[in-house]
Protein backbone atom coordinates (compact mmCIF):
# COMPACT_ATOMS: atom_id res chain seq x y z
CA UNK A 1 0.00 0.00 0.00
CA UNK A 2 1.14 3.47 -0.86
CA UNK A 3 0.26 6.45 1.33
CA UNK A 4 -0.18 8.75 -1.65
CA UNK A 5 -2.87 6.58 -3.16
CA UNK A 6 -4.57 6.36 0.24
CA UNK A 7 -4.50 10.12 0.66
CA UNK A 8 -5.87 10.80 -2.79
CA UNK A 9 -8.51 8.11 -2.28
CA UNK A 10 -9.62 9.67 1.01
CA UNK A 11 -9.71 13.10 -0.64
CA UNK A 12 -11.94 11.76 -3.41
CA UNK A 13 -14.24 10.03 -0.94
CA UNK A 14 -14.53 13.22 1.15
CA UNK A 15 -15.59 15.14 -1.95
CA UNK A 16 -18.07 12.42 -2.86
CA UNK A 17 -19.74 12.10 0.53
CA UNK A 18 -19.30 15.52 2.15
CA UNK A 19 -21.28 15.69 5.37
CA UNK A 20 -22.35 12.06 5.15
CA UNK A 21 -18.84 10.91 5.96
CA UNK A 22 -19.11 10.76 9.73
CA UNK A 23 -15.77 9.44 10.83
CA UNK A 24 -12.38 8.73 9.29
CA UNK A 25 -9.70 6.75 11.06
CA UNK A 26 -6.28 6.41 9.51
CA UNK A 27 -4.21 5.27 12.47
CA UNK A 28 -4.60 1.67 11.38
CA UNK A 29 -2.71 0.38 8.32
CA UNK A 30 -5.85 0.79 6.20
CA UNK A 31 -8.40 3.60 6.33
CA UNK A 32 -11.63 3.07 8.21
CA UNK A 33 -14.63 5.18 7.24
CA UNK A 34 -18.00 5.49 8.92
CA UNK A 35 -20.79 6.76 6.74
CA UNK A 36 -24.49 7.46 7.04
CA UNK A 37 -26.77 4.51 6.60
CA UNK A 38 -28.70 6.09 3.72
CA UNK A 39 -25.59 6.56 1.63
CA UNK A 40 -24.39 2.95 1.95
CA UNK A 41 -25.63 1.58 -1.33
CA UNK A 42 -24.57 4.40 -3.64
CA UNK A 43 -21.21 4.71 -1.86
CA UNK A 44 -20.56 1.03 -2.38
CA UNK A 45 -21.51 1.30 -6.03
CA UNK A 46 -19.18 4.20 -6.68
CA UNK A 47 -16.40 2.57 -4.67
CA UNK A 48 -16.63 -0.37 -6.98
CA UNK A 49 -17.12 1.48 -10.25
CA UNK A 50 -14.92 4.55 -9.72
CA UNK A 51 -12.31 3.41 -7.20
CA UNK A 52 -12.05 -0.17 -8.40
CA UNK A 53 -12.85 -1.95 -5.11
CA UNK A 54 -13.94 -5.03 -7.02
CA UNK A 55 -13.43 -7.49 -4.17
CA UNK A 56 -15.59 -7.63 -1.05
CA UNK A 57 -13.43 -9.52 1.42
CA UNK A 58 -15.92 -9.89 4.25
CA UNK A 59 -18.84 -8.37 6.07
CA UNK A 60 -18.62 -8.15 9.85
CA UNK A 61 -21.40 -7.46 12.30
CA UNK A 62 -20.83 -6.13 15.80
CA UNK A 63 -23.10 -5.55 18.75
CA UNK A 64 -21.97 -2.39 20.53
CA UNK A 65 -24.67 -2.86 23.21
CA UNK A 66 -25.43 0.86 23.35
CA UNK A 67 -28.88 2.38 23.60
CA UNK A 68 -28.45 4.26 20.33
CA UNK A 69 -27.16 2.86 17.08
CA UNK A 70 -26.58 -0.49 18.64
CA UNK A 71 -25.38 -2.57 15.72
CA UNK A 72 -22.50 -1.89 13.41
CA UNK A 73 -21.81 -3.56 10.07
CA UNK A 74 -18.34 -3.35 8.58
CA UNK A 75 -17.58 -3.94 4.92
CA UNK A 76 -14.02 -4.94 4.18
CA UNK A 77 -13.17 -3.97 0.61
CA UNK A 78 -10.07 -4.68 -1.45
CA UNK A 79 -8.86 -2.94 -4.57
CA UNK A 80 -6.60 -5.36 -6.38
CA UNK A 81 -5.43 -2.75 -8.89
CA UNK A 82 -4.36 -0.15 -6.31
CA UNK A 83 -3.34 -2.70 -3.66
CA UNK A 84 -5.61 -0.92 -1.24
CA UNK A 85 -7.91 -2.11 1.50
CA UNK A 86 -10.77 -0.11 2.95
CA UNK A 87 -13.14 -0.64 5.85
CA UNK A 88 -16.58 0.89 5.54
CA UNK A 89 -18.80 1.06 8.61
CA UNK A 90 -22.48 1.79 9.06
CA UNK A 91 -24.50 1.79 12.24
CA UNK A 92 -28.10 0.69 12.60
CA UNK A 93 -30.67 1.11 15.32
CA UNK A 94 -31.91 -1.77 17.41
CA UNK A 95 -35.57 -0.98 16.66
CA UNK A 96 -35.13 -1.16 12.92
CA UNK A 97 -32.09 -3.30 12.06
CA UNK A 98 -32.40 -3.04 8.31
CA UNK A 99 -29.72 -2.27 5.75
CA UNK A 100 -29.84 -2.17 1.96
CA UNK A 101 -28.23 -5.23 0.40
CA UNK A 102 -25.03 -4.99 -1.62
CA UNK A 103 -25.53 -8.35 -3.35
CA UNK A 104 -26.34 -6.48 -6.57
CA UNK A 105 -22.87 -4.89 -6.42
CA UNK A 106 -20.77 -7.81 -5.14
CA UNK A 107 -22.26 -11.29 -5.55
CA UNK A 108 -20.05 -12.58 -2.72
CA UNK A 109 -22.07 -10.51 -0.26
CA UNK A 110 -24.84 -13.09 -0.42
CA UNK A 111 -23.58 -15.55 2.20
CA UNK A 112 -21.85 -12.85 4.25
CA UNK A 113 -25.13 -11.01 4.67
CA UNK A 114 -26.88 -14.24 5.54
CA UNK A 115 -24.32 -14.84 8.27
CA UNK A 116 -24.79 -11.35 9.72
CA UNK A 117 -28.55 -11.93 9.62
CA UNK A 118 -28.14 -15.30 11.32
CA UNK A 119 -25.97 -14.00 14.14
CA UNK A 120 -27.39 -10.50 14.76
CA UNK A 121 -30.80 -10.38 13.16
CA UNK A 122 -29.92 -7.50 10.87
CA UNK A 123 -31.96 -7.94 7.72
CA UNK A 124 -30.83 -6.82 4.31
CA UNK A 125 -33.45 -5.23 2.12
CA UNK A 126 -33.50 -6.64 -1.39
CA UNK A 127 -31.51 -9.78 -0.57
CA UNK A 128 -32.69 -12.59 -2.83
CA UNK A 129 -32.41 -15.45 -0.30
CA UNK A 130 -32.28 -14.18 3.27
CA UNK A 131 -32.37 -17.40 5.27
CA UNK A 132 -30.32 -18.53 8.26
CA UNK A 133 -27.02 -19.95 7.10
CA UNK A 134 -25.67 -21.88 10.14
CA UNK A 135 -28.45 -22.34 12.64
CA UNK A 136 -31.69 -24.24 12.09
CA UNK A 137 -34.38 -22.26 10.32
CA UNK A 138 -36.78 -22.53 13.25
CA UNK A 139 -34.21 -21.15 15.71
CA UNK A 140 -35.74 -18.07 17.36
CA UNK A 141 -32.69 -16.25 18.72
CA UNK A 142 -29.69 -14.36 17.42
CA UNK A 143 -26.69 -15.88 19.23
CA UNK A 144 -24.06 -13.16 18.85
CA UNK A 145 -26.26 -10.48 20.42
CA UNK A 146 -24.90 -9.60 23.83
CA UNK A 147 -28.07 -10.51 25.73
CA UNK A 148 -27.99 -14.09 24.42
CA UNK A 149 -26.86 -16.47 27.23
CA UNK A 150 -23.45 -18.09 26.86
CA UNK A 151 -24.72 -21.66 26.88
CA UNK A 152 -27.76 -20.89 24.76
CA UNK A 153 -31.40 -21.34 25.59
CA UNK A 154 -32.02 -24.88 26.92
CA UNK A 155 -34.11 -26.92 24.51
CA UNK A 156 -33.77 -24.48 21.64
CA UNK A 157 -31.47 -26.80 19.71
CA UNK A 158 -32.63 -30.35 19.28
CA UNK A 159 -30.66 -33.25 20.78
CA UNK A 160 -30.88 -36.71 19.18
CA UNK A 161 -33.22 -39.29 20.64
CA UNK A 162 -31.12 -41.40 22.99
CA UNK A 163 -33.26 -44.52 22.83
CA UNK A 164 -32.48 -46.58 19.73
CA UNK A 165 -35.21 -47.32 17.22
CA UNK A 166 -35.05 -51.08 17.50
CA UNK A 167 -35.54 -51.31 21.27
Amino acid at each position, binding site marked *: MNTETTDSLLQDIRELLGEDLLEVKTDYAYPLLRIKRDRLHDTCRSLKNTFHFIYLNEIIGTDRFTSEERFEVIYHLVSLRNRQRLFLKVRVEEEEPVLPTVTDIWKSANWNEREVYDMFGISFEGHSDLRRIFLPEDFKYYPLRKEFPL*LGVPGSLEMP*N*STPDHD
Partner: protein
Amino acid sequence: MSLDRVMGEGYFTTTIDALTKWGRSNSVWPMPMGLACCAIEMMAFAGPKYDAARFGSEVFRFSPRQSDVMIVAGWCTYKMSHAIRRVWDQMPDPKWCIAMGACASTGGMHRCYGVVQGVDNFLPVDYYISGCPPRPESVINAILKIQDKIKEQQSLALDS
Protein backbone atom coordinates in the same frame (compact mmCIF):
# COMPACT_ATOMS: atom_id res chain seq x y z
CA MET B 1 7.42 -80.51 24.00
CA SER B 2 6.77 -81.03 20.35
CA LEU B 3 4.10 -79.28 18.37
CA ASP B 4 2.27 -82.58 17.90
CA ARG B 5 1.92 -82.85 21.60
CA VAL B 6 0.27 -79.43 21.86
CA MET B 7 -1.89 -79.51 18.76
CA GLY B 8 -2.49 -83.24 18.63
CA GLU B 9 -4.49 -85.15 21.11
CA GLY B 10 -4.60 -82.70 24.01
CA TYR B 11 -7.69 -80.80 25.01
CA PHE B 12 -8.74 -78.24 27.50
CA THR B 13 -12.06 -77.28 29.00
CA THR B 14 -13.50 -73.80 29.20
CA THR B 15 -16.82 -72.07 29.13
CA ILE B 16 -18.40 -70.49 26.09
CA ASP B 17 -18.58 -67.28 28.11
CA ALA B 18 -14.81 -67.22 28.73
CA LEU B 19 -14.07 -68.04 25.11
CA THR B 20 -16.37 -65.30 23.87
CA LYS B 21 -14.90 -62.76 26.25
CA TRP B 22 -11.37 -63.73 25.22
CA GLY B 23 -12.26 -63.27 21.56
CA ARG B 24 -14.15 -60.05 22.02
CA SER B 25 -11.66 -58.34 24.27
CA ASN B 26 -8.72 -59.05 21.96
CA SER B 27 -10.39 -57.76 18.82
CA VAL B 28 -11.88 -54.42 19.80
CA TRP B 29 -12.22 -52.71 16.46
CA PRO B 30 -12.66 -48.95 16.77
CA MET B 31 -15.08 -46.83 14.83
CA PRO B 32 -13.25 -43.53 14.44
CA MET B 33 -15.48 -40.52 14.99
CA GLY B 34 -12.84 -37.87 14.41
CA LEU B 35 -14.37 -34.44 14.86
CA ALA B 36 -11.39 -32.21 15.66
CA CYS B 37 -7.71 -32.22 16.62
CA CYS B 38 -8.08 -35.28 18.90
CA ALA B 39 -8.52 -37.27 15.71
CA ILE B 40 -4.86 -36.66 14.84
CA GLU B 41 -3.80 -38.27 18.11
CA MET B 42 -6.23 -41.08 17.41
CA MET B 43 -4.45 -41.69 14.07
CA ALA B 44 -1.11 -41.78 15.87
CA PHE B 45 -2.61 -44.36 18.21
CA ALA B 46 -3.29 -46.63 15.25
CA GLY B 47 0.00 -45.87 13.52
CA PRO B 48 3.25 -47.85 13.76
CA LYS B 49 4.85 -45.89 16.63
CA TYR B 50 2.15 -46.56 19.22
CA ASP B 51 0.91 -49.64 17.41
CA ALA B 52 -2.57 -50.46 18.60
CA ALA B 53 -2.18 -53.77 16.77
CA ARG B 54 -0.48 -55.12 19.90
CA PHE B 55 -3.89 -55.02 21.56
CA GLY B 56 -5.95 -56.16 18.61
CA SER B 57 -7.35 -52.70 17.84
CA GLU B 58 -5.48 -51.79 14.68
CA VAL B 59 -8.42 -52.28 12.36
CA PHE B 60 -10.15 -48.93 12.08
CA ARG B 61 -13.48 -49.73 10.54
CA PHE B 62 -15.12 -46.85 8.74
CA SER B 63 -18.29 -48.87 8.56
CA PRO B 64 -20.30 -48.85 11.78
CA ARG B 65 -21.56 -52.37 11.00
CA GLN B 66 -18.10 -53.86 11.51
CA SER B 67 -16.90 -52.01 14.60
CA ASP B 68 -17.13 -52.55 18.35
CA VAL B 69 -16.02 -49.36 20.04
CA MET B 70 -16.72 -45.81 18.97
CA ILE B 71 -14.01 -43.27 19.77
CA VAL B 72 -15.62 -39.82 19.78
CA ALA B 73 -12.58 -37.60 19.27
CA GLY B 74 -13.24 -33.90 19.38
CA TRP B 75 -15.94 -31.36 20.09
CA CYS B 76 -19.43 -32.18 18.96
CA THR B 77 -21.94 -29.60 17.77
CA TYR B 78 -25.68 -30.03 18.07
CA LYS B 79 -25.87 -30.49 14.30
CA MET B 80 -23.24 -33.25 14.34
CA SER B 81 -24.78 -34.99 17.35
CA HIS B 82 -27.61 -36.32 15.19
CA ALA B 83 -25.16 -37.91 12.75
CA ILE B 84 -23.12 -39.44 15.59
CA ARG B 85 -26.19 -40.92 17.22
CA ARG B 86 -27.24 -42.34 13.85
CA VAL B 87 -23.85 -44.03 13.36
CA TRP B 88 -23.98 -45.31 16.95
CA ASP B 89 -27.41 -46.84 16.38
CA GLN B 90 -26.08 -48.61 13.29
CA MET B 91 -23.32 -50.34 15.24
CA PRO B 92 -24.27 -53.91 16.21
CA ASP B 93 -24.37 -54.93 19.86
CA PRO B 94 -22.27 -55.42 21.92
CA LYS B 95 -20.69 -51.99 21.57
CA TRP B 96 -18.72 -49.58 23.70
CA CYS B 97 -18.01 -45.88 23.56
CA ILE B 98 -14.96 -43.82 24.46
CA ALA B 99 -15.20 -40.03 24.88
CA MET B 100 -11.73 -38.86 23.92
CA GLY B 101 -10.46 -35.56 25.29
CA ALA B 102 -11.89 -32.70 27.30
CA CYS B 103 -14.29 -31.51 24.59
CA ALA B 104 -15.98 -34.86 23.99
CA SER B 105 -16.18 -35.50 27.75
CA THR B 106 -17.51 -32.15 28.97
CA GLY B 107 -17.53 -29.63 26.14
CA GLY B 108 -14.10 -28.44 27.27
CA MET B 109 -13.17 -24.94 26.30
CA HIS B 110 -16.06 -24.77 23.83
CA ARG B 111 -18.47 -23.45 26.43
CA CYS B 112 -21.01 -21.99 24.03
CA TYR B 113 -24.47 -22.43 22.63
CA GLY B 114 -23.54 -24.54 19.61
CA VAL B 115 -21.49 -27.31 21.22
CA VAL B 116 -22.96 -30.22 23.18
CA GLN B 117 -21.49 -30.08 26.68
CA GLY B 118 -20.27 -33.67 26.71
CA VAL B 119 -21.26 -36.48 24.35
CA ASP B 120 -22.71 -38.39 27.32
CA ASN B 121 -25.78 -36.25 26.83
CA PHE B 122 -26.82 -38.56 24.01
CA LEU B 123 -24.38 -41.53 24.06
CA PRO B 124 -23.72 -44.15 26.77
CA VAL B 125 -20.02 -43.43 27.34
CA ASP B 126 -17.95 -46.22 28.91
CA TYR B 127 -14.62 -44.47 29.33
CA TYR B 128 -13.60 -40.81 29.43
CA ILE B 129 -10.06 -39.83 28.45
CA SER B 130 -8.73 -36.62 29.95
CA GLY B 131 -6.33 -34.32 28.11
CA CYS B 132 -6.44 -31.70 25.42
CA PRO B 133 -5.64 -33.58 23.27
CA PRO B 134 -4.79 -36.83 25.08
CA ARG B 135 -1.59 -38.60 24.15
CA PRO B 136 -1.90 -41.86 22.18
CA GLU B 137 -0.84 -43.77 25.30
CA SER B 138 -4.03 -42.58 26.97
CA VAL B 139 -6.08 -43.98 24.11
CA ILE B 140 -4.26 -47.31 24.45
CA ASN B 141 -5.05 -47.18 28.17
CA ALA B 142 -8.70 -46.58 27.36
CA ILE B 143 -8.75 -49.59 25.03
CA LEU B 144 -7.21 -51.69 27.83
CA LYS B 145 -9.88 -50.47 30.24
CA ILE B 146 -12.55 -51.38 27.71
CA GLN B 147 -10.95 -54.82 27.45
CA ASP B 148 -11.13 -55.17 31.24
CA LYS B 149 -14.76 -54.17 31.10
CA ILE B 150 -15.49 -56.76 28.42
CA LYS B 151 -13.77 -59.44 30.52
CA GLU B 152 -15.88 -58.56 33.55
CA GLN B 153 -19.20 -58.48 31.75
CA GLN B 154 -21.42 -61.47 31.22
CA SER B 155 -21.01 -62.15 27.51
CA LEU B 156 -24.03 -64.37 27.02
CA ALA B 157 -27.59 -63.56 27.91
CA LEU B 158 -28.92 -66.48 29.95
CA ASP B 159 -32.55 -67.51 29.71
CA SER B 160 -34.10 -67.10 33.09
